[in-house]
């Protein structure tokens, strides 16, 4: 899978123009998702 994805990873030339834009949107969208889903942690207190 890793090797397969490695080949697909950087072969962006096979994508249509609209797919390239969509790709960027998905990556940026997931980055926003990750940022929003970070949890706040308290430094003090017991590990409960």
């Amino acid at each position: 899978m890793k090797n397969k994805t490695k080949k697909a990873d950087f072969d962006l030339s096979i994508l249509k123009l609209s797919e390239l834009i969509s790709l960027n949107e998905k990556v940026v969208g997931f980055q926003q998702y990750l940022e929003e889903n970070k949890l706040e942690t308290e430094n003090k207190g017991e590990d409960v």
Partner: protein
Amino acid sequence: MPNFLQFIEEDVQSKKTLLSAMPTSTKTNKRKYNEKIASFQEKYEEYRVAIKKYLDLKSKSFHINDTRNPNEINEKVASLENIKFILNPTNGYFEKMGFDTLLYQMSNYQDLKFSCLKDIINALLDKFDMAAARPKKENFDYTYYINEFMSSFLDIRHSGSNNYDQLTEIFEKIYWESPELIKHLELNFRKLIKKNEKKFIDYISKLQSDIKVRSGLSYESCLEKLLVTYRELNSLCKENISDVICLAKDGTIDINNYFEDSKIRSTTFSDLLIDPLNMSDEITLNKFYDNIEKLTSNVEEFANYVKFSPLIIDFKNRYLKQGTQDSVQSKGRSKNNSALKEIESKISKAEKKLSKLNKKVINYKFLNFNKKDNNQKDTKFESIKLANELSVLYDTYNEEYFKEVVLSKVSETFTVTDLLYLYYSFDFYKKTAIKRVYEVNNYDEIVKYSDSFDLFALNPTNVIVCAAALYNEENIARVIINKYRLLNINITEEDLNPEDLNTFLEKLKLIIRVREIENSSISVEKIWFIREVNKIDIANSAE
């Protein structure tokens, strides 16, 4: 094998599933959870950077550089316009020296800062120097205060220091005693210009001879050359594919409307056709496009006409009375001539009286007479009163002067172009009319209107206004509609409503841009892509 988009879609889904399944109740759990998130963020930032790099390269590869360079042709136009300005037979030395523009600025001093006034005065004095008519301190004798102000001004100017700070203090002191100082200064300059008329006439005459010899052109041949050069410039600067790409890139036009399956594109085409067109027939299609280009040029000219029609109507009302035009022309000219001479004579007499009056006060500066201050005060007051009366006389003179110019030009065949050219030749009156008609009180806005007017007046590719003998708007609109209906192009009166002109022009431009794209090496999709990448750039810079 999945492509990268498919890979990302699946990867995002699986990572979201993984995160949602991770426990987050304890502190340790939360820490591990956040570490996972951080590792995903790191990976996706790598993806984002690599994708963005690729998008940028791809977008740049589609760009079509604008290789046009209008500099040379612009210089040619500027040079020819300068020759035309000097050889213009419509106006005289007063306009050719640029006195009209400068005195207009001075007469609108309430909108200007002091530093601007200093520049105007220096510009006026430069013109006197050019004609070897340099005025001395004693020539500025309209009032005592003018003499005091200009004596200091000339001292600073001739010293070369360019430090007018001291003058600001003098101005502040004098202004409260003589608030119409700047108006009086304007009149003083008018008097000096009249006094040195012969020198200015000779200067302009010599300039005209030199220009004719240097350029090898007469006024008429200059106009012919300008027409050709403007046509070249228009052709060069016409919106091309690089312009279309830039307009789409920054979102000025919505490139989505240009796709073949766009409803807006198809209805724009169909709305403009009386009978449907065979779009696959290249010859018919190109004819249609050519007609749309000509129509666009006519509508742009019409839009300008509409913009300036208040000025045209104002001119008609002021100078061309219905039904009495002939009698105004034949009798009015001679009547106006004598009215002008009468005012000139009144001004001359009043100025002589003023000069004599001011000698009493001004000369006290240099002679230490032990006269009572009250006498001086009375004389100063008297001279201001007389100067103010002269101000009214000059206003009347200026109106009569232009009336005489108009009456000498106006005839039954007087066209809109003739009117445009008349105002172009008389900057002072054009700006006065703009201020009155558009109720503009801001000098910068007057200049904007004025420059826009000149562009319209000077455009030798105008066709409608050349023939329009002061037609009204409806007639011109009807002429355009009828002409193009003969060419299968559907225009209605609503399309040419002044309020709807911009909307109609945008429709026409859409069609011209479609043609431009079709004739180029780029597609609508590629332009769309360039726009999308630019949007990403903007979003990134906002962060």
